[in-house]
């Protein structure tokens, strides 16, 4: 979950990398093993450092700003509860991303199928940059609707790998599956999407 902000922060702090890394490890260890007060302090530090990255990850999956904020809190609550299972040597970000993806998946599964077709869904979408004038707004709308009808597991894989262009390895870690399984999910998602569009008379 490396975003532009954290990358800049990392390069600026390169000369202090070792103390920063050791502080981070100490914080992670306190979060896992400390008493209640020291765990809470470590948790606050982790929350403040990682909240933007976790929120950004969730927003890209659910594409709904209020839900993304709520799911960020839910993710950190799950992280807080599961502190004893955390392995500091494996890093916080991949673990947080996995929990965030699970929370987002639960949310998508709980949505009614018509959510994807509601005006609320489209209201949250950014307007496309460099859009092809040959592709009408109607076709884009029908594509988004068809995509919304896919199973959440397929939709997440395709959203992250195709729309957000995240590396397959990162998507696989977040979903807790293999890279091959990610590729298969993307392939199946696109095949089902094409079939749905063809039934509506759209040939991509």
């Amino acid at each position, binding site marked *: 979950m490396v975003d532009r902000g954290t990358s800049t922060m990392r390069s600026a702090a390169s000369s202090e990398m070792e103390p920063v890394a050791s502080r981070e490890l100490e914080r992670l260890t306190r979060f896992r093993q400390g008493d209640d007060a020291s765990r809470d302090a470590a948790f606050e530090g982790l*929350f403040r450092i990682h909240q933007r990255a976790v*929120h950004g990850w969730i927003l*890209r999956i659910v594409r709904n700003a209020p839900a993304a904020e709520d799911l960020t809190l839910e993710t950190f609550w799950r992280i807080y509860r599961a502190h004893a299972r955390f392995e500091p040597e494996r890093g916080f970000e991949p673990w947080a991303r996995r929990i965030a993806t699970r929370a987002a998946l639960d949310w998508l599964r709980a949505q009614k199928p018509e959510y994807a077709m509601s005006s609320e869904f489209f209201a949250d979408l950014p307007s496309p940059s460099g859009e*092809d004038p040959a592709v009408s707004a109607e076709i884009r709308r029908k594509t988004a609707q068809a995509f919304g009808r896919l199973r959440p597991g397929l939709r997440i894989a395709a959203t992250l790998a195709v729309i957000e262009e995240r590396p397959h390895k990162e998507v696989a870690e977040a979903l807790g599956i293999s890279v091959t399984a990610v590729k298969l999910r993307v392939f199946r998602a696109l095949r089902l999407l094409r079939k749905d569009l063809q039934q509506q008379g759209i040939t991509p």
Partner: protein
Amino acid sequence: MKEQEPRIRDQGSERLELLLRQALPHIEDDADLDRDLWPAMLRRLDERRKVHVPWFDWVLAGGLAALLAVFPAWIPVLLYYL
């Protein structure tokens, strides 16, 4: 420039992916969170901690209540040991 991932593709995949990206454009970095969620997190922690009782505590309490209902004579014994 993002590196292109090797994918399992069939005919027309690229066109479909392009259409999908136009229908659902990727979310820019500047769409990220613009406020600190820590106060909201604190409220949630307080709420959840208040209502969170482990399931085995409920089982113990239920078992004890059932036992005392069946053997009410044990109530003074229990109170003595409390």
